[in-house]
């Protein structure tokens, strides 16, 4: 969904592409914050100067630089840009952590609390007082007051009050994080513990101040194109309905934008289906009482590795569609570089491990198309050798992988039974559910886990949800 912060990020992205293409990014980039927030015009925060300071950090993240690593506050964006342009290749092109928290943008939201508001009428029945299991509520001067030392934030009073007088305020990022990786530090500014972070991107979507930012590889891709490198666009199955027009038109748009070749990652998903099904059948033959989980969602794989070590052996070893797509590209042309284009933050971490050269979000691809004046609906469909299998395109939806594996298995073994369950979105609750599976208390043999509710189509960086 579009909101103020998404709008500004997209506007910045398009401006970067336009300035890059006209060869003036280095000379223009320091002026962008001022141009966007001229004096005497409305500001989004306290004043235009605060806005400009944060725009500078946003641009830093869009150049792929971590805001946390800023050492010299006086260093202008143009200096960062000049440095980066020389080292676009290799390690430098791959940010170690895909996310960065912009301290000056973080509002240091007050700790989660349940509080009574002006709506309280100090009524006679006082259902809040009677329903509080901890006797934390008292009515003082005709108004309910909650003793924060006693309150356990159970929310019973919230449900009890007919005037909606009691509300719960939260720290949105902390609330959204399934693994407790983002916390306010001693300065009251949010910080991500990257040892714990699974890169699900939930905090990125949750923060109303857009303080959590993605470290972009947009300029790396633009620079590589300019150097004349062969970059192949690998479009994730979640691209369906993200842009106007059909996927085949989007492929043409990518080719026009300067990619040397284009393909659907769904072609890789076909291979994942075949191998994952074979792996599943083999595992079941060895031990019919065990279970296997899917492996295509990188945030889920990160979750298993970092937080659920007992489950790791159950995670399928089959590579993800992105990895197979890369293989297909490299078989055709070993010198080509690969660019995964999708809706996912965690894919950035998987790409690093699996030698995919760059990852762009749909938004970043959109910025390239917008900057280069390419309209998807005005493009002819790309002449694909053959369209990807519909089950493979369905990987972007919850149940998609399950359906694909089931179809493949029944084709091989008639009457094949899959005792499948889906974890449709990772949050604190479903994390507990997943742990129950590890203990073998829930009788399933195939567990599909997707970090985003509904699947990748609702990924943190999808354009339309």
């Amino acid at each position, binding site marked *: *969904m*579009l909101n103020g912060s998404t*709008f500004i990020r*997209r*506007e910045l992205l*398009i*401006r970067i592409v336009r300035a890059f293409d006209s060869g003036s990014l280095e000379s223009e980039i320091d002026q962008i914050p001022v141009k*966007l927030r001229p004096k005497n015009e409305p500001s989004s925060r306290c004043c235009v100067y605060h806005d400009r300071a944060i725009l500078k950090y946003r641009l830093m993240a869009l150049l792929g630089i971590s805001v946390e690593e800023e050492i010299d506050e006086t260093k202008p964006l143009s200096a960062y840009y000049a440095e980066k342009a020389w080292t676009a290749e290799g390690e430098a092109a791959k940010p170690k952590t895909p996310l960065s928290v912009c301290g000056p943008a973080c509002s240091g939201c007050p700790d989660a609390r349940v509080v009574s508001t002006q709506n309280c009428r100090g009524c006679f029945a006082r259902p809040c007082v009677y329903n509080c299991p901890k006797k934390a509520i008292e009515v003082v001067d005709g108004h309910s007051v909650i003793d924060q030392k006693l309150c356990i934030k159970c929310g019973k009073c919230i449900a009890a009050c007919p005037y909606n007088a009691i509300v719960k305020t939260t720290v949105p990022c902390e609330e959204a994080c399934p693994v407790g990786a983002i916390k306010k530090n001693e300065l009251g500014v949010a910080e991500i513990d990257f040892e714990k972070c699974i890169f699900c991107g939930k905090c990125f979507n949750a923060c109303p101040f857009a303080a959590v930012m993605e470290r972009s590889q947009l300029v790396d891709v633009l620079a590589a194109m300019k150097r004349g490198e062969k970059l192949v666009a690998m479009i994730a199955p979640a691209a369906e309905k993200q*842009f*106007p027009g059909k996927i085949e038109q989007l492929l043409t748009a990518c080719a026009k934008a300067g990619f040397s070749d284009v393909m659907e990652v769904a072609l890789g998903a076909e291979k994942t289906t075949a191998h994952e099904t074979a792996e599943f059948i083999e595992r079941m033959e060895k031990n019919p009482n065990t279970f296997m989980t899917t492996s295509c969602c990188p945030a889920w794989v990160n979750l298993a590795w970092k937080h659920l070590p007992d489950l790791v052996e159950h995670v399928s070893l089959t590579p993800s569609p992105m990895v197979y797509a890369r293989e297909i590209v490299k078989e055709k042309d070993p010198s080509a570089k690969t660019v995964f284009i999708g809706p996912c933050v965690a894919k950035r971490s998987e790409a690093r491990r699996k030698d995919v050269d760059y990852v762009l979000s749909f*938004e970043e691809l*959109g*910025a390239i*198309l*917008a900057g280069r*004046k*390419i*309209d*998807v*609906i*005005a493009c002819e469909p790309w002449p694909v050798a053959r369209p990807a299998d519909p089950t493979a395109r369905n990987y972007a939806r919850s149940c998609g992988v399950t359906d694909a594996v089931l179809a493949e298995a029944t084709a091989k073994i008639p009457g094949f039974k899959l005792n499948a369950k889906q974890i449709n979105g990772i949050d604190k609750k479903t994390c507990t559910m997943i742990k129950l599976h590890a203990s073998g208390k829930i009788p399933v043999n195939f567990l599909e886990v997707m970090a985003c509710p509904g699947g990748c189509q609702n990924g943190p960086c999808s*354009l*339309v949800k």
Partner: protein
Amino acid sequence: MEKVKVEICCGTACYLLGAANMMDIEDKLPAEWSGKVEIEAKPCLELCERENLGGAPYVRINDTEVMAQATPDKLLTRIGELLGGAA
């Protein structure tokens, strides 16, 4: 007015900056407007370059009027005004 012609810019810039939310506007038209509103998705209307990006998404109404920073609500209100008493 008898009929209103609405051209929603689906150029990539406008799409990213908000037109994506207007793609289903046809479904939101009140039944009594049926036949009176013609909606079309258009490639770049060339306003994002000439005017500015901050004005996107752009919608063109009846060939001459340009709506900047269009939203589904703004658009529906304007169509209603143009249809006047007829609606």
